[in-house]
């Protein structure tokens, strides 16, 4: 009796357990994939943030150029209008003169007629000449303006590119200087010395002068010595080979703000 009871209890329990298991298998328990979907938008936001700073400069670059182009176009239109007006005036004058000449011709006949004709021809030639000159001038002006606008745009693009280049070179300079710098014992955090450095296209340091002292002579001197110790900036020499104009503009003589914690040009 007892034995059978315990066995039947075992059979019942086992059957129920495995039945539940099979049920779970058949029906399945979903819901986890939906949870994952909620997480994803955060990643998208992160990528968006990266794009924003890049997108910002674009309108800035276009903004200054557009007005210039607009201005150029406006001027061109105005000049065209002026020209048309002048030509019309010339035509009107010509007509009035012609009618006057005709009246005179009726009065003074052939002698004066010839003189009037000559004069009209002369006038016309002079007017034509003036108009032509003006047209040429205007064309030149327009071209100049267009070129100026293009230069401006190119300069802007260049300057943006250059800014990155300059940044990388200035950090290179900082690295070199700070690697050669030996810390004097009296150096304290927050000490800043400004050095005026002159380079030649070979990258060699020509002169170093202290522009603004940190107030600590030893520190100033150590910074100056560090620059002298570098002696030659190889990368600057390479830059000078590639783009002498940029070198002349940025690195022939520049200010180095020497700050042991955070070096900046």
């Amino acid at each position, binding site marked *: 009796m007892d034995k059978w009871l315990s*066995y039947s*209890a*075992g059979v019942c*329990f086992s059957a129920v357990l*495995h039945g539940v298991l099979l049920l779970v*298998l*058949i029906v*399945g328990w979903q819901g986890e994939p939906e949870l994952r979907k909620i997480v994803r938008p955060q990643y998208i936001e992160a990528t968006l943030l990266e794009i924003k700073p890049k997108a910002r400069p674009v309108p800035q670059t276009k903004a200054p150029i557009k007005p210039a182009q607009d201005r150029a176009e406006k001027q061109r239109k105005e000049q065209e209008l002026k020209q048309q007006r002048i030509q019309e005036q010339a035509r009107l004058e010509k007509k009035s003169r012609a009618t006057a000449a005709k009246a005179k011709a009726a009065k003074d006949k052939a002698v004066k007629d010839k003189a009037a004709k000559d004069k009209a021809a002369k006038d016309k030639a002079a007017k034509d000449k003036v108009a032509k000159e003006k047209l040429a001038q205007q064309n030149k002006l327009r071209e100049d303006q267009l070129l100026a606008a293009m230069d401006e745009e190119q300069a802007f693009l260049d300057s943006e590119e250059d800014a990155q280049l300059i940044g990388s070179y200035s950090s290179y300079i900082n690295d070199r200087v700070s690697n050669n710098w030996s810390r004097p014992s009296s150096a304290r955090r927050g000490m800043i010395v400004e050095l005026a450095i002159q380079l030649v296209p070979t990258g060699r340091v020509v002169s170093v002068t202290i522009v603004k002292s940190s107030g600590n002579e030893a520190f100033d001197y150590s910074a100056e010595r560090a620059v002298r110790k570098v002696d030659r900036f190889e990368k600057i020499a390479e830059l000078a080979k590639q783009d002498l104009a940029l070198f002349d503009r940025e690195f022939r003589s520049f200010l180095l703000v020497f700050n042991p914690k955070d070096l900046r040009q």
Partner: protein
Amino acid sequence: MTQELSLWALVIGATIPVKMVMLILLGASVMSWVMIVQRGIYLRKASSELKEFENTFWSGVDLNRLFSDGGGRAKNLPEGRIGGVEGVFRAGFREFNRLNQQAGVDPEAIVEGTERAMRIALSREEEKLNTHLPFLASVASVSPYIGLFGTVWGIMQSFRGLAMVQQATLAVVAPGISEALIATAMGLFAAIPAVLAYNRFAANAEGLQSAYETFAEEFSSILHRRVHSSQSEA
């Protein structure tokens, strides 16, 4: 169903050897759970009976009455015999009385005969305590291997399928491997409860067995004393 790739679809879509492995494991799991519940009930009952009997035995009750009470209860049982620690007691006491009533039996022989009878009862009890435990042990140790076999077979098949496909993508192998891994999961599902139950029940059975033996020793020392006192009186 194929789109969702539910577990049931995987089980249905499995190859025949994998299906057989799964069936074997399901059977093993069902059987082992039957054993677990049955053993749990039996061992709990045995330990509660042990406690109860020891309480009454050491309460100073008359042994003859205890024996006759037990005999009355035994008639109601289907086996006609009381098990557990009381069974050991009854076997010993019956033999003792039988030998004691016979005249001219050496007291040492009486004690020896009683001990032998109790030893037999003990070994019978031991057998009862340990039934099904070997089954649980084998399920615990073998079903992971069976599951692994199913998995290996399933993966073999899915890789063979992969070899025939020109463009091998993850989607070609993944269902096969997933299906194959179900076999391992089932093996572990069968094995883990079996291991736990085996360890627990083996420890319980061991404890009960040593308690029975201790009782047998104590009881035989009581009988020994009684034989010698009655002998000295006579």
